[in-house]
Structure formats: structure tokens, C-alpha cells
């Protein structure tokens, strides 16, 4: 089975997000009202062939937590859809 996986990598709550902070200031400087909590993350997408949905999900999660993110600083969200 073939899947399209999307891994989102976010800085954990409590970890300083200077990029998000800077972008937030820029949004404010442009004069848009009511915008808060700007956060910057990464999206990594990949195609994966595996014998089942569970196997694909397990493999992508392992890649996401060992290589794509550093658990000291970041959280991951894994999404999977059949391709």
C-alpha cells in the first residue's frame, strides 16, 4: 500500500520561538488587529510504501521522532493518507 505522509514539527510549548515572535511583530507592524500566538513550524512530506496503514504510520512516526525532530525541543504531528 502506498501512502502520502505529512509530518509537522513544532517547537514544544514553553520553548522560545524567536521566529514566531519576530513574524508576530511584523504582522503587528503591518497593522493587522487581533493576531496573536504566531508560531513557526516545519512540514515534511513523503511517500511511503508499506504493508499496512499501521506499519506505515509506525515507520513515519519513528522517522519523525528520531531524525526530523529533537524531542528536547520539538513535538511532531503525523498525518497519513492513502495515495
Amino acid at each position, binding site marked *: 500500500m502506498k501512502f502520502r505522509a505529512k509530518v509537522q514539527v513544532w517547537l514544544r510549548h514553553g520553548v*522560545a520561538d524567536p*521566529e514566531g515572535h519576530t513574524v508576530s511583530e511584523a504582522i503587528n507592524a503591518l497593522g493587522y488587529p487581533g493576531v496573536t500566538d504566531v508560531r513557526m513550524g516545519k512540514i515534511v512530506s513523503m511517500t511511503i510504501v508499506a504493508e499496512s496503514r499501521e506499519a506505515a504510520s509506525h515507520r513515519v512516526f519513528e522517522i519523525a521522532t528520531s531524525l*526530523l525532530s*529533537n524531542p528536547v*525541543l520539538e513535538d511532531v504531528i503525523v498525518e497519513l493518507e492513502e495515495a
Partner: protein
Amino acid sequence: MTGVSVGILVFPGSNCEYDVASVLDNLGIKTKFIWHRQTDLDGVSGLVLPGGFAHGDYLRPGAIARFSPVMTSVVEFARSGRPVLGICNGFQILTEAGLLPGALQKNAMLKFLCKEVELEVVSAASCATTLIQTGKRLRLPINHFEGNYTCDSNTLDDLESNNQVVLRYVENPNGSMNSIAGISSKKGNVVGMMPHPERACDDLLGSVDGLEIVKSYVANL
């Protein structure tokens, strides 16, 4: 020091390996460059992970380097108690590899820092500070974007109570927790630091304080 040699790891994107080699060479220590695809450490007595941008710092500094083929041998070497010194990007690789706790995040205020700073030697129990009096101040250059040391509060307590904080900034330049500039493993044989001692070993470069660190490291070979 006959027969003693230091292995300097070279990843694609490392750029301080020749500086480290030159300083060790001046002290009469033989050096060997160890390409990241090598798995044999060639009988060296100590390892240095030099600064630079291993694998382009893609994903995060050290994230990809930590999976380079050489790293399995590096982990074994470190576990055997022999000296391993990570400088700047080398420090980042050591944390990603789990040989040192915590992580290095982007500098507070998103500033890339390139300047000489004052540091205090906090512990003489590490392989990079054996010959230095605790409390001594050193002037060394820093040159990094991700040098803001962070870890969870239990780890921080452990580092402090086990005497694993090796160097502290006198004036915190990057937001680093407890002004940490360098730490060691529990045994003290694995050390990571953001400052570049190898760039402060000649009067022409403005400071020779780095020599104290390099000489301490050499004394542990």
C-alpha cells in the same frame, strides 16, 4: 607523547578541522582526519568534533551528522571513557547523538553571534579543564546561531549537582540556561562547548586562553 594521536571528525560542512589540527600539531600531537563515512577510528587516543555546519545544518544542527556511519564508533569510544571534545557544531552533534544531555536552540533575539566573550571555568573535572583552576576566567571567541543551551529542569539540576557544567558565560550572550557555555558527561570525558578554544591559541588571534583548554584535553590522552 609518542604514539598518541587525536582523531578529528570531518563531516561534509565541517570547517574548523584544520584549526584544531594546527593547534594540536604545534603541541606535538599527531592528528588524523576521520571522514564521517569511516567506521574505524584508526587507533586514536582522543576525538575532536570540530565546528562548522555538518550536513549543512539541515533539519537542525547535528541532526543528520548524528546518523553518519562514524557515529556508532564515536558512541562506543565515548562510552569507554576516552576523551571526546565537541566544539560549537561538535557540541550540537554530541547533544543530538545523546552523548550529552539537552539541546542547543536558536540564540535569544535571533542573533547570530560572532565575538570574543568572557567565560568562567566552573569545573576542573572535565577532560577539557583538568589543568585549569576553577573560577578562572578565559577569553574565547564564539561564532554561532544555535548556542542557546536548554534542557528540562531535572537535567539542569543534575548537571549542576554532578559538577557537569564546565564553562559559563560571564555575561550571557544567547539566552542559555544558567549561562551554560559548556557541559560534560557524568564521567567528564565527553565535553561540549560553544566557544572555540582552537581560535584563541596564538597572540596574533588576540587571545591564547584557548591553549589552557587544549592542553588540558591533551593531558587526558
